[in-house]
């Protein structure tokens, strides 16, 4: 039996609700139809994506380090991990990250994403991203970037990205995800715009809630 | 030929705050308008309408339309009453035989400050009021009639007047018609917050374009023995140099 039919037979209210919805929609609604509003009117266009991305990172309490090449990126990675206590690092299993980790000579236990989810006690995770978004200082990750936990379980998340991945705004990032049919091959994606935080006590901002306290972007401009 | 306006006096102004209407007439005459007052008028229907009794409000609204049908221009010293006519009569009288007349009357009905600035195109009315004044932005005038600048433009032209901005001038004073009786505790708490903001300006007077707000605030301020007194906008504009009489005593 096809999935949708199976769902129908196990869910007796489904048809009833659809019936109610259709009956409700038949009610005449007084609607003035104003001209559709163009997205370009809403946000100031981003003319200087690199500067904008870096500004937004600062505002989002993220760290963004620009590097010229892999060697410099490897040094940044080592520097970012250096102050962290002893413990496992989880890394997305990708050739560029394998190379980076080797260059960095970390001397830590590495758990690769192909071995499974990050351990609860991981000190940091290192992943790639699908894209960087200048408008909001965001990184877009998917399940292909080491899984879901990779960007949230450890207190420090490090993203290794290339400048070509930077897009100006949310519209571009989302339409690319649509066109690329991201969700045909990834069950999950996330637009991350800073370290985790809360203001639930007296509206006072606390950086580092359940997710990472530190989000570091290593932005490599060269090869 | 002198220009003429018809005066629409809110029922509570007629009965409790007649000076509001007297001063409105004075200012209109001073800027060159003849004022007629259709004595047949009673109420626009707002109290019943706001409480949900649209069937009781409807005949009042129809009567109002008939009373003012032949007026060239209708001026009213109350943002909430003008809102009733302009914003709500179209819906309330949607099925009435007087619907077209209602839309016509609505298009010719103006709040006092709105009339001065947008129709008469006047901001300088020759007023003198050498006192510190703060402005409360009454909700209907602000959000339904979109009158934000007009009252301030008029106040800025008053000789000697020191205009002080209060914190949260656009927050509701808490009157809300029957709300003041049905939810008296909340209404009073909101009024008290407004009174505190008024006191913080150290202004001698608080003014607005809605005398219902001022009636409520007068009560709250009076109970607190506050220094500030309420005064309706036209009552400020009616003051000339030399003063015709001492500033209005708004307490019984």
């Amino acid at each position, binding site marked *: 039996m096809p999935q949708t039919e199976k769902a129908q037979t196990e869910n007796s209210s489904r048809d009833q609700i659809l019936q109610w919805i259709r009956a409700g929609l038949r009610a005449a609604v007084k609607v003035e139809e104003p001209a559709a509003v163009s997205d370009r*009117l809403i946000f100031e266009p981003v003319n200087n994506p690199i500067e904008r991305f870096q500004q937004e990172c600062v505002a989002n309490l993220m760290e963004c380090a620009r590097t010229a090449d892999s060697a410099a990126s490897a040094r940044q990675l080592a520097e970012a991990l250096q102050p962290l206590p002893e413990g496992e690092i989880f890394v997305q299993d990708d050739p560029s990250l394998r190379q980076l980790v080797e260059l960095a000579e970390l001397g830590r236990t590495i758990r690769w994403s192909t071995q499974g989810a990050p351990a609860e006690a991981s000190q940091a995770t290192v992943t790639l991203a699908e894209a960087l978004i200048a408008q909001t200082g965001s990184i877009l990750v998917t399940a292909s970037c080491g*899984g879901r936990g990779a960007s949230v379980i450890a207190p420090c998340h490090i993203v290794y990205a290339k400048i070509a991945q930077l897009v100006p705004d949310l519209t571009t990032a989302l339409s690319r995800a649509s066109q690329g049919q991201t969700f045909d*091959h990834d*069950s999950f994606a996330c637009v991350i*715009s800073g370290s985790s935080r809360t203001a639930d006590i007296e509206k006072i901002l606390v950086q580092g809630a359940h997710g990472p306290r530190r989000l570091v972007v290593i932005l490599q401009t060269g090869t | 030929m002198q220009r003429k306006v018809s005066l629409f006096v809110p029922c509570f102004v007629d009965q409790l705050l007649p000076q509001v209407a007297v001063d409105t007439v004075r200012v209109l005459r001073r800027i060159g308008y003849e004022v007629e007052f259709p004595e047949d008028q009673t109420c626009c229907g707002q109290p*019943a309408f706001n409480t949900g009794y649209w069937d009781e409000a409807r005949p009042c609204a129809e009567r109002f339309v008939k009373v003012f049908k032949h007026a060239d221009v209708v001026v009213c010293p109350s943002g909430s009453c003008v809102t009733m006519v302009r914003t709500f009569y179209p819906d309330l009288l949607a099925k009435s035989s007087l619907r077209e007349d209602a839309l016509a009357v609505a298009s010719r009905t103006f709040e006092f400050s709105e009339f001065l600035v947008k129709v008469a195109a006047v901001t300088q009315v020759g007023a003198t009021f050498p006192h510190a004044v703060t402005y409360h932005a009454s909700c209907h005038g602000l959000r339904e009639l979109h009158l934000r600048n007009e009252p301030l433009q008029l106040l800025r032209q008053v000789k000697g007047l020191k205009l002080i901005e209060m914190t949260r001038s656009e927050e509701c004073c808490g009157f809300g018609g029957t709300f003041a009786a049905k939810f*008296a505790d909340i209404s009073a708490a909101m009024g008290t917050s407004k009174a505190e903001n008024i006191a913080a300006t150290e202004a001698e007077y608080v003014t607005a374009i809605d005398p219902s707000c001022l009636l409520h605030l007068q009560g709250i301020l009076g109970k607190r023995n506050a220094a500030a007194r309420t005064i309706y906008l036209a009552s400020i504009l009616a003051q000339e140099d030399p003063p015709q009489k001492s500033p209005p005593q708004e307490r019984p």
Partner: protein
Amino acid sequence: MSTAAQRFLQDAAVKSADLMHREIIQRGMDSYDAAHLKGRARIKDWEAARQKCQEIKREAINHLDRYLLQFEEKVVARGGHVFWAANSEEACAYIKNLATRRNVRTVVKSKSMVTEEIHLGPALEKAGIKVWETDFGEFIVQLREEGPYHIVTPAMHLLRGQIATLFQEKLGQKIESDDPAYLMAVARRVLRQAFFSAEMGISGANFLVADAGVIAISTNEGNGRLCTSIPRIHVVVTGIEKVIPRLDDLAVLWPVLATSGTGQGITTYGTLIGGPRRPGEADGPEEFHVVLVDNGRSQLLADAEQREVLHCIRCGACLNICPVFRHVGGHTYGTTYPGPIGSVLTPHLNGIMEFKHLSYASSLCGACSSVCPVKIDLHHHLLQNRRNATEAGATKSSERLMFRAWRHAMLHPRIYALGGWLMRNSLRMVYGLGLVGSILDPMRVWNRYRAPVPLPSESFRARWRKDRAAN
């Protein structure tokens, strides 16, 4: 008067007089106001943004069946389950039965107002399942055994000292400080154990994206991320009205939701989930269930005047600006949804007879409508609810009679003038006899908090007639 109305009046009286409460809320709202202004400044044309959001939601709601079916098809094709629940009971039963069948002992929950609406927590607890609220504010109010105070910031009515004391009492560990960062770290440690041991994670959804077939969740803390990544079953509980047509729509909805909700340009995490983990993915739940809750929403569709109430994106901006909310607080409403949206919505979801008083507990100032990012005409809907209440015969007969008398007077100017004259002179007598505030004082409600109204010697019309006769 319904018991809900009586309770509301009592609680409102207490809270209106509570100056400490007022100060805490005022401080919180001042903080929000400042952040919100900054957030608004990041958007070039705020009115265009509002209009765009209104258009998106209008399109979604006006074709609700089509978009829900599109969403369902995609989720099911990826191995997810979609359950349509007519009401709270069906939704709770589905989730409870699922949990029981899968031997779920512990649930971690991220914030979802719909789960409050359907009373999911108690239903699961009754089945012997431990439910952890993991949103920091929800975690706090869960320990206090009360509902959320605000739909976005559930614990904004509490000071840090109270929270520290609460943790000391309820968490069985020594609390060394009331510093917010310290308290968050305590909660993090406690909840981390729950995240890594729970068999089921339950979340809400801010949006259901039809063309991509994904749910979208906007959060800041990371608890929602952990709830939807680690446990082997993920259940989404959502109202049917949360659907939007396209993934691209999030480009404006996300920033607008964040700006209106907290003043941020965008929330820290904009999570998109389309199904259970796929083969080859490092982690993720094995099962994905979306529970679509109707619970009265399809009825609101049929209301030609008020269908747009379903556009609400639950940002909380109307609560923040509402002067009534600021003076009585979220708990006074006694409903799942407080504030202006709650007052408009609750009579539709829970019955007009019991909850009409909420539509009257407003001065109709219109501030809510002016800030609503999807341009719902909230305060006019309150007026319509009042009309609906009188037409349903839900108001007091004494009041109906009073307005009938009022109408008679207003249609007869001489009766009106006489009535006014009688009122002024009877009040004059009451004042003269020193009976202000007594049972004989018709204005005693007014006079409880205000100085008596002025009593002019004559009405304006009398004076006008006199002046005219003199000339």
